[in-house]
């Protein structure tokens, strides 16, 4: 199948290319020269960019199919222009056995939508006690190892897990949150939580855990990816760690560069997220750090939650927000607010996460996999439950009008979504 994508504004963050031109696809990869195409896609007025790479999307399989299924969430991914996604291991059971990982990859492969990169559990059942069979899991397709949101309270186990992963050169993706300091908390420990009477998670729950992680990286040399930064202070620590030359990368949830604890309003459970939304100062620091590269990439942290688990008092509601279909418009909104060029904004959801993942996608270059998104950056998108293909309709942005609509998505040279 040869496809000619004609006359679009081609934006390739990896090379900095930004200009009107044609993109030719043959045999699943970007091709240099045009032979006779089987199909021509007119892309006038559209942006042609690498498909989005999302490092955190919960698909809820196996085990949590009443919240979402692989079918629904893969459909949501390509509708959102996401062509590669990494799924955290917090399924039921967790991704701690090669058989589960293998089954998940097969199921995803059969759907032929986005590419799926499972992240394996770092410890058995995510219980933080015994290491998983990391080499077996890697052989089954795990690209990294993580605890997702599960705590790893025993720092002896944490140390050994990082050592073991470093032995084989595996990447470890962890959130920085001291489970004891965060215990019982549901919102940022500050004025808003005090006013609303919500139990707080202090900012230093993040920084103290991050300090421990960075010390362990110094000791073990493990390649660490810190997931979902939420505080300005942690951004400063990452900046210093990178300056020191530590092998550290990090990401931020896209909601956290737009929202703060003020958005909790009158107990809006849609704003119950993990980590919690913090102050406007933290939000601004995250948005700036994502622009200057201290924070490598933005992720959707896609977490479908059914209505029954959101229509509850704030502290009983399940944390998380849907995000696969909002990652692109929210990244574009962030880029506009920071006055970044389109290539610089898209880098944070394409080429940079691809670099963290260590894959060849996320760029438009001859020979690269033809994972592409065609979108209209100005077209309005009203966020309603009906507009979302994901089974998760839970979003703090419900009712908002965002800009940026996906018109077509290609994975490995195949059109997998068209609107």
């Amino acid at each position, binding site marked *: 199948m040869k496809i000619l994508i004609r006359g679009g504004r081609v934006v390739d963050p990896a090379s900095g290319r930004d200009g009107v031109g044609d993109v030719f696809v043959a045999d699943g990869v970007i091709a240099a020269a045009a032979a006779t195409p089987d199909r021509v896609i007119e892309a006038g007025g559209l942006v042609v960019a690498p498909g989005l790479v999302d490092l955190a999307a919960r698909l809820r399989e196996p085990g949590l199919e009443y919240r979402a299924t692989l079918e629904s969430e893969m459909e949501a991914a390509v509708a959102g222009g996401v062509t590669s996604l990494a799924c955290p291991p917090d399924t039921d059971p967790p991704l701690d056995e090669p058989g589960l990982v293998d089954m998940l990859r097969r199921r995803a492969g059969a759907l032929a939508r986005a590419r799926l990169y499972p992240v394996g559990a770092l410890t058995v059942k995510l219980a933080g006690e015994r290491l998983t069979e990391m080499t077996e899991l890697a052989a089954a397709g795990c690209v990294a190892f993580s605890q997702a949101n599960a705590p790893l309270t025993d720092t002896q186990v944490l140390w050994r897990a990082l050592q073991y992963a470093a032995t084989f050169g595996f990447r470890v993706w962890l959130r920085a949150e001291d489970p004891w300091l965060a215990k019982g908390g549901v919102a940022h420990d500050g004025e808003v939580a005090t006013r609303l009477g919500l139990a707080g998670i202090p900012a230093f729950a993040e920084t103290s855990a991050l300090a421990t992680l960075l010390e362990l990286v110094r000791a073990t040399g493990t390649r660490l990816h810190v997931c979902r930064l939420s505080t300005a202070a942690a951004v400063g620590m990452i900046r210093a760690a990178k300056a020191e030359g530590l092998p550290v990368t990090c990401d931020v949830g896209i909601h956290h560069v737009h929202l703060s604890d003020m958005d909790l309003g009158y107990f809006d459970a849609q704003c119950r997220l993990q980590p919690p939304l913090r102050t406007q100062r933290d939000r601004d620091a995250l948005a700036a750090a994502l622009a200057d590269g201290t924070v490598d990439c933005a992720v959707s942290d896609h977490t479908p939650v059914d209505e029954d688990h959101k229509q509850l*008092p704030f502290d009983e509601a399940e944390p998380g927000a849907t995000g696969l279909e909002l990652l692109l418009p929210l990244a574009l909104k962030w880029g506009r607010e920071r006055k970044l060029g389109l290539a610089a904004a898209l880098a944070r959801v394409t080429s940079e996460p691809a670099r963290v993942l260590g894959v060849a996608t996320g760029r438009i270059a001859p020979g690269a996999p033809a994972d592409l998104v065609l979108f209209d950056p100005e077209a309005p998108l009203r966020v309603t439950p009906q507009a979302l293909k994901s089974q998760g309709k839970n979003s703090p942005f419900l009712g908002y009008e965002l800009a940026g609509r996906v018109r077509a998505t290609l994975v490995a040279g195949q059109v997998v979504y068209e609107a």
Partner: protein
Amino acid sequence: MPRNPQLNAHGELQHLLSIEGLPREVLLQILDTAHSFAGVTERDIKKVPLLRGKSVFNLFFEASTRTRTTFEIAAKRLSADVINLNVAVSSQSKGESLLDTVANLSAMQADLFVVRHGSSGAPYLIARHVKPHEHVINAGDGRHAHPTQGLLDLYTIRHYKKDFARLTVAIVGDVLHSRVARSLVHGLTTLGVPEVRVIGPQTLIPAGVGALGVHVFHDMRAGLKGCDVVVMLRVQNERMDGALLPSAQEFFRNYGLTAEKLALAAPDAIVMHPGPMNRGVEIDSSVADGPHSVILPQVTFGIAVRMAVMSIVAGN
């Protein structure tokens, strides 16, 4: 931020969820109305027909005797029909969701829900889902608010002190977990009290509380100096012997109100407590039963205040 969910399109009280955000005029209207009801409670026939034919559902997801009883008395004096539901031991334990419980009661033609719940914000969730003619009164939600208690505290202060604009008020004890403290602070600042203090150990003072317009004291003696009103908070037994407090005895030593400490306050200071009291933990019996104490009048005023709130809310 969305419109204050307890006010209707005309700025009138549709629900009472929190004192925060209520205009001064609304607070004064409630206090004045309560004053007019105070006479009713002293008559031989203690009833007015304002809520005749209305159904008041006392919906308590958390155990309570006193608050529930005073709401029941208030509703009956307004001639309403009162249904008490101790949900803590019925439908919730069978797994029914909060909104399903409310929908079922709504189908039984409720007019007014009086709700107590262990989770902050639960009455907001209910208020968002009730029918337009139904009203919700928050009778205490988590650590967030206990607005009728706050209002009866304001009523008590006005009764004894008249002018809010000259007062120094201290709130002492477990501010972190106290919905009573939060509601009273909002009420006092709205009514123009120039100096509101909170006194307690760092473990029981919430982060950023200064943003509510209060001054924080950790030394009780310094904090009580010159106070016209001293509000003692209940310290829950489960807060003792843990990471927040070492023991009841040690709490009493530092933050218990004794006659000796009370002598540092203004000579005509009043002492308040939302009840139930822990004698010898946060307050000494000689103070609780002494001449400065207005703790029992608070309970009496509470009925008139709850009558006022119910009649105003149901009338809007």
